[in-house]
């Protein structure tokens, strides 16, 4: 049976290879005039060339986004090998690369057109406010593993680069409108035009309303259910966003890009705060709040010769979140200089300098206290250099290092060595060794957080005796708290036996040290008259662990109009007990995508995915809980009666029932993901 399959695969591959060859031969015999009359087939698919980089890279194209019907960036990231993407509520997502998944995942760096989306006060990404017109995204590059030597601290487990289209590629008008059940309604419009010869512009506006995800109190602990008692679980939201971009080709081989975005969201969430009131000593409440922000970015690039070029980029980013649990205003100003050149015949060198100023003001935070001002600012200086050395025709060595100086831990150096060996046209192997750090968040350095209280007569950690009083746990920021450190060893293998089939695989071993832990500190009995004792604990670096895993991505152009993609991630880890962050990724994540163009008007896209059990921090119990495995199917149908109009229907998470996909740490409640659908009309004009 097994042999039959192998044989079947092989013969089909050869067959599709022949097809590929056939369809390319004849157009060379046509005259110029005849060529201009040939219609380009809209049905035919193209193989995506594998990256040549010595790193585990996966690219999501504009076409992938369009066909899958992803309406947000997290949705577009589903099915990337090595990533665990899970929806927590209508707005919030947990996205982790090679483990450390969670709402507060601090080990993944995310950037949009060179602007960092990583939030410094909680070291993570507020995915709900990172958006743009999906149709204007050129591609999303996902690098698993450390990118710190190039991109900076916190790019420990991965880097996600969201790259929007050049404004010359978005000329003319585009509009889309749609609605469904989760997507209650959305509309976008973009217009692109020409300012002058070599100067183009575009502007867009988009808005949407998304419904609450359903909540079932059986997904919570008895204690949580009692605290929840009748509180609204609404988590619906709406957003209005706009922006634009100008690209200008200037005299003297230089160019300038200026872009801006602004957004205003209205969100509803249910959050937890501990209290000192018997009998539950904690409560959930429903919170409706606004989040808004804007950014402005300019980048100037000038070529000095055929092999050298420099660029200067500056941006300003303002974000405000009036969350009643954790409300803040953050202002970021960043300037970067980069210079790339070729030295001799074999060295491709790029180096850069950067400075970032972050002002961060916590406006509302009932659970946070600080000895320092709640309005503080930090500085980040950085310098990096990368040398790509061609040792011979088939062997490349990359040496890179980045030095950064931050306000909390001072200087950090992050080196990386990579080697790529192109065995022949079909086989390539690469390997990497890297050291990277995750620098402390503001909370870890200088804020005190009362995230939970322990009920009277309950011992939570066995050495600590149960006391007849409520114990208020306050985790105190530690000025000596160090960066978390990671040594990563990777190997990768790429195999392209035919132009219509390719396989990309990688293996990794991550060794973490100085991971965040909590150390028991002084017990304050002076508050007994008020009915509780206060236990001060502090952040420390006593945890460690390691993880290993594999990722495989195979794509196969079965025929001109049919393409399949199989992505698989395997993860295994071993970490210190009672870590204060989610460390484990699901052991297996598999997705199988099929994309079929029935004819020049109709395309069908279907994805089946399976995620095995996941471990997540359980609120209140200080242990991990298991989130059950789940699977589901996404289906999309695109119908284009003419090249300017497309009518689409998308079904998401079908056939999987109703399930909790993942759970946010401590402050939120679990929501369920259910089948949903929406329809969309898009028009180009």
């Amino acid at each position, binding site marked *: 049976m097994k042999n039959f399959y192998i044989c079947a695969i092989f013969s*089909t591959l050869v067959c599709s290879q022949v*097809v590929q060859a056939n369809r390319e031969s004849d157009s060379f015999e046509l005259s110029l005039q005849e060529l*201009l009359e040939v219609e380009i087939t809209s049905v035919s698919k193209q193989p995506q060339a594998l990256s040549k980089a010595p790193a585990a890279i996966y690219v999501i194209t504009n076409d992938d986004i369009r066909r899958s019907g992803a309406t947000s960036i997290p949705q577009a990231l589903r099915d990337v090998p090595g990533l665990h993407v899970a929806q927590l509520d209508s707005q919030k997502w947990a996205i982790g690369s090679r483990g450390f998944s969670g709402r507060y995942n601090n080990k993944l760096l995310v950037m949009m057109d060179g602007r960092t989306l990583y939030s410094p006060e909680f070291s993570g990404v507020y995915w709900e406010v990172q958006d743009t017109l999906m149709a204007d995204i050129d591609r999303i590059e996902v690098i698993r593993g450390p990118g710190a030597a190039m991109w900076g601290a916190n790019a420990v487990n991965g880097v996600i680069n969201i790259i929007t289209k050049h404004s010359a590629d978005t000329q003319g008008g585009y509009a889309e409108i749609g609605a469904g059940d989760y997507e209650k309604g959305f509309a976008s419009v973009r217009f692109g035009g020409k300012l002058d010869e070599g100067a183009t512009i575009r502007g867009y506006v988009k808005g949407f309303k998304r419904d609450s995800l359903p909540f079932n109190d059986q997904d919570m602990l008895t204690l949580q259910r009692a605290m929840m008692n009748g509180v609204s679980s609404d988590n619906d939201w709406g957003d209005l966003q706009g922006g634009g971009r100008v690209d200008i080709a200037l005299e003297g081989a230089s160019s300038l890009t200026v872009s801006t975005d602004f957004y205003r969201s209205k969100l509803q969430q249910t959050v937890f705060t501990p209290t000192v009131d018997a009998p539950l000593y904690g409560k959930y409440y429903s919170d409706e709040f606004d989040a808004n922000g804007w950014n402005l970015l300019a980048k100037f690039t000038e070529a000095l010769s*055929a092999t050298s070029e420099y660029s200067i980029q500056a941006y300003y980013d303002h974000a405000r979140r009036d969350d009643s649990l954790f409300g803040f205003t953050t202002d970021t100003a960043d300037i970067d200089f980069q210079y790339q050149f070729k030295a001799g015949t074999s060295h491709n060198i790029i180096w850069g300098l950067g400075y970032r100023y972050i002002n961060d003001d916590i406006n509302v935070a009932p659970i946070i206290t600080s000895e320092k001002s709640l309005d503080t600012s930090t500085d980040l200086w950085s310098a990096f250099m990368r040398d790509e050395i061609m040792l011979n025709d088939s062997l490349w060595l990359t040496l890179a290092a980045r030095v950064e100086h931050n306000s909390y831990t001072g200087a950090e150096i992050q080196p990386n060595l990579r080697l790529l060996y192109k065995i022949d046209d079909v086989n390539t192997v690469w390997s990497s060794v890297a050291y990277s750090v995750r620098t402390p968040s503001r909370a870890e350095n200088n804020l005190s957080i009362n995230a939970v209280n322990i009920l009277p007569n309950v011992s939570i950690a066995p050495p600590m005796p149960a006391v007849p009083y409520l114990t208020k746990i306050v985790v105190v920021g530690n000025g000596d708290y160090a960066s978390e450190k990671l040594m990563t060893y990777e190997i990768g293998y790429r195999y392209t036996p035919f132009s219509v089939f390719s396989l990309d695989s990688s293996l990794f071993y991550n060794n973490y040290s100085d991971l965040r832990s909590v150390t028991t500190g002084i017990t304050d009995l002076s508050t007994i008259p008020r009915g509780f004792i206060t236990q001060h604990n502090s952040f420390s670096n006593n945890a460690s662990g390691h993880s290993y895993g594999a990722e495989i991505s195979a794509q196969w152009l079965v025929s001109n109009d049919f393409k399949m993609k199989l992505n*698989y991630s395997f993860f295994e880890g071993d970490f210190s007990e009672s870590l204060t962050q989610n460390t484990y990724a699901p052991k297996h994540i598999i997705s199988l995508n099929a994309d*079929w163009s029935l004819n020049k008007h109709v395309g069908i896209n279907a994805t089946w995915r399976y995620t095995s059990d996941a471990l997540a921090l359980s609120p209140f119990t200080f242990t991990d809980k298991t989130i059950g495995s789940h699977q589901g199917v996404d289906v999309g149908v695109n119908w284009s009666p003419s090249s300017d109009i497309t009518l689409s229907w998308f079904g998401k998470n079908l056939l999987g029932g109703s399930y909790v996909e993942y759970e946010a740490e401590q402050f939120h409640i679990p929501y369920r993901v259910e089948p949903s659908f929406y329809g969309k009309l898009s028009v180009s004009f």
Partner: protein
Amino acid sequence: MISNIIRKSALKLFICLGVPLSLFSSSFVGAQSADVYPLKTALVYNFAKFTQWPETAVSSVVNICYFSELYKPSMERLAGKKISKSLVLVKQVKNIDEVDQCQLLYIDKSQREKLNRLFLKVKGKPILTVSDISGFYGEGGMIEITVKDNRLRFLINLFPVNESDMVLSSQMLKLAVEVKR
């Protein structure tokens, strides 16, 4: 165990769907429509036929250079063809400094970030630059390929062409959507 079953069934699905489809789907393309990569490659080949390079650059071969891997299968098929008496040689280039020997350079839209360096490099040189990067001919390129109503179109900027002492045939200029003189 469970995961094993899933892996096996995923493989089966991969094959069971793939095999019949590849055998029975309408894979063969009719004469009236074609894939975009070979079509653009054929257009590039035609541009070479209608270009006269200055005497210094004329030799018994025409070097056609291109950047991206995506065009490799179709570009490779041009190798060995003849343009009048010259033999067509095809070369995949990776860096801008490798283009000195090219008579025609095709840079596709995935390579936009190389444009500044390219224009600096080829300025005044008899290298016909062709691209499907939007705005190419306005920014200093010679021929830009575009798509309108699912058909290929091209625009010509004669300033850099004249500056490099190349001559494009009037037949080709007539077929261009726009010619900047």
